[in-house]
């Protein structure tokens, strides 16, 4: 009987709290639509970039593959694979600008100049030994191929780290598929089986001056990474924002005091608030994901139980932090100010919009320590790489521990705030 009554009370508080958002246009905008607005703006700006749609990436090629080099004591001038590489870039729908006067060293300088002017986003320098190395032409005295590395240089614009990373990722994904395809052809044409096996061992001789790799089973665009990442932002904007004003607002209006003088325990009030915050986080998350699908046709994996569970764990931290703010703030205005002060800077450190890798090391360490960053990583791993829940266990454990710590501190702050009534 008592339990039934408590459940009624919890849901009455949650429903009333939820109605407060649903019937307030400003609250709807800032809680539900503002994150969506951000997603749309950033999605249309960067979203379609990535390996899936490459036409917006302007690539300059400096093809030195035709320069004469010494191969096994003989002069060789073969640009077959270098030319094929440039053609394949065009076929892959990159916008290609060729700086290809063979042997003209100024071509590289011209490409760099064009990067600095924003004419191209990235330049790829194809080395002179590209064809010879990829087709195993360097041999020892017995005619056996010898390992020969060929260095493909990528130059990007340091003043545009985000655009550079997008372009770099796209080229890296392209290079890896190109090598796989062409070396497959070259190896299959070697008549001797023993030589073929040896060539397989030597395969992949290209070294690229960047170290990122394409990690997904599917070709992904920037937006495909971004949409799962926005769930981290949902925690900050919807979860933290709402939780931080939930109690402060009621205290300012006096409704909190009225609840406390009813036969309702403080824990019941808290449970009601928690449920409504959670409902808002999930609703906001659904809106973000649905918008990603409808507006940008995001290509994701849907492990629903893992997604729901991870959001719950992330929400524990957001709501806990919100409770701390809400309990310490004297009124709703103060709670709002503190929340803005906390959530606005934090959104840049969770890796949702900008990769943490482009940040200075201390910022990366700080970002990695945030439970919201863990949620972003978890969501990207589950939804873009189709990793099983077990594979994201370290992040899940981290979110659980930090969530419990923050939520418990929030409860303590809430109990202390009751003494100020």
């Amino acid at each position, binding site marked *: 009987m008592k339990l039934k009554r408590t459940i009624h009370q919890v849901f009455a508080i949650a429903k009333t709290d939820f109605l*407060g958002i649903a019937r307030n246009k400003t609250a709807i905008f800032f809680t539900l639509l503002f994150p969506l607005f951000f997603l749309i703006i950033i999605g249309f700006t960067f979203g379609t970039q990535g390996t899936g749609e490459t036409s917006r990436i302007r690539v300059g090629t400096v093809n030195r593959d035709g320069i004469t080099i010494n191969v096994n004591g003989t002069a060789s001038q073969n640009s077959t694979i270098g030319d094929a590489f440039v053609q394949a870039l065009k076929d892959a729908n990159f916008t290609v600008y060729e700086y290809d006067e063979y042997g003209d060293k100024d071509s590289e300088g011209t490409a760099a100049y064009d990067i600095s002017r924003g004419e191209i986003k990235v330049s790829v320098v194809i080395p002179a030994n590209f064809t010879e190395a990829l087709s195993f032409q360097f041999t020892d005295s017995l005619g056996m191929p010898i390992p020969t590395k060929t260095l493909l240089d990528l130059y990007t614009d340091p003043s545009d780290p985000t655009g550079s990373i997008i372009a770099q990722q796209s080229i890296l994904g392209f290079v890896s598929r190109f090598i796989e395809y062409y070396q497959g052809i070259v190896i299959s044409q070697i008549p001797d089986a023993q030589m073929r096996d040896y060539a397989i061992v030597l395969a992949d001789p290209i070294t690229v001056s960047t170290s990122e790799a394409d990690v997904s089973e599917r070709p992904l665009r920037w937006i495909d990474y971004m949409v799962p990442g926005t769930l981290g932002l949902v925690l900050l904007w919807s979860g933290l924002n709402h939780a931080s004003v939930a109690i402060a607002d009621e205290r300012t*209006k006096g*409704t909190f005091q009225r609840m406390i*003088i*009813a*036969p309702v325990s403080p824990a019941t009030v808290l449970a009601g608030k928690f449920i409504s915050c959670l409902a808002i986080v999930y609703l906001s998350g659904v809106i973000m994901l649905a918008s990603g699908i409808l507006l940008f046709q995001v290509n994701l994996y849907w492990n629903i139980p893992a997604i729901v569970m991870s959001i719950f764990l992330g929400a524990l931290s957001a709501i806990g932090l919100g409770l701390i703010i809400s309990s310490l703030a004297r009124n709703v205005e103060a709670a709002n100010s503190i929340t803005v002060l906390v959530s606005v800077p934090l959104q840049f450190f969770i890796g949702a919009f900008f990769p943490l890798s482009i940040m200075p090391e201390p910022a990366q360490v700080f970002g990695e320590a945030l439970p919201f960053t863990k949620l972003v990583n978890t969501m990207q791993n589950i939804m873009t790489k189709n990793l099983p829940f077990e594979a994201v266990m370290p992040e899940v454990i981290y979110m659980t521990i930090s969530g419990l710590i923050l939520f418990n501190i929030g409860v303590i702050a809430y109990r202390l705030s009751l003494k100020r*009534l």
Partner: protein
Amino acid sequence: MNLNDVEVNSITKRFEDTVAVDNVSMSVARGELFGLLGPNGAGKSTLTKMLCGMINPTSGKIEVGGFNIQDKPMKVKELLGVVPQDIVLYDYMNARENLAFFGRLYGLSGGKLRNRIEELLKFTQLDEKAVRRHISTYSGGMKRRVNIAAALLHDPQVILLDEPTAGLDPKNKLALWEIIRTLHNGGKTIMLTTHMMDEAEELCNQVAIMDKGKIIALGSPRQLIKKVKMENTITVVPDKITPKLIETVKKISGVKKSYRAYDENEKVETLKIITKKAEDILPDVVSAILSVETKILSVELSRVTLEDVFILLTGRSLREEERQV
């Protein structure tokens, strides 16, 4: 058998160095309409908060309906209906939704809750059209009525009303007094905190006057007025009230007290003079006022009120206290 619904025994509440309520004892009998009077800062709100379990006393004991509030807080909360001074409602919900929410907090649900809401909407005279609108569109008087209804949902035996008519116009004030009287006639025990002495005099059959955390007078309004052994008040509206004028009037033989007051109905500052025999000293009062080059706009003789009692007991005007606060 204990016939008192509220028992307060030697209650003290300290906030660091400040004593907000100082060793207060009082009792409210079942069915009584009890007024707790005093200026802002007198300790009324702190005492009320302790009565409804929002804060704990530093020492002493409070019993409501025979239950100690510290031992059985939930039991006491079920017996109490608290009407806060401010309008404490969700302005984005309509009256019915607000009442449903507060009803659920008190464990009501289903048909019982629906019936009770309809009963109270009728009791507070809110028409169906208004009930469907959000609270934010209501007039002050309508909000006050819903505010009261929200405290009555669980049909409490003891009702605490904290300044229920504050800020209301005379028409709405009278309507609310009628609601309070009906509740009282229905056998409810009512504790009313107010700083409006006319309200207490009109409604309460027992009052306690609080000042600086202590109860300085306790009894029926008639008893308290009798206690000061003064009968009349001369209320003068001069064109200006100066300290010199007050001092001059004070020197007149037979004047017990003279002070500046504010007539809320007429919205004018008045000079009040408390005396045993107003008719005898009236000519002296008029000449004294004219002697300090002040015009008299009106003069009125009336009997002593609770407000005058407060001034005689404390030496200060209630309104002065409020203005200082």
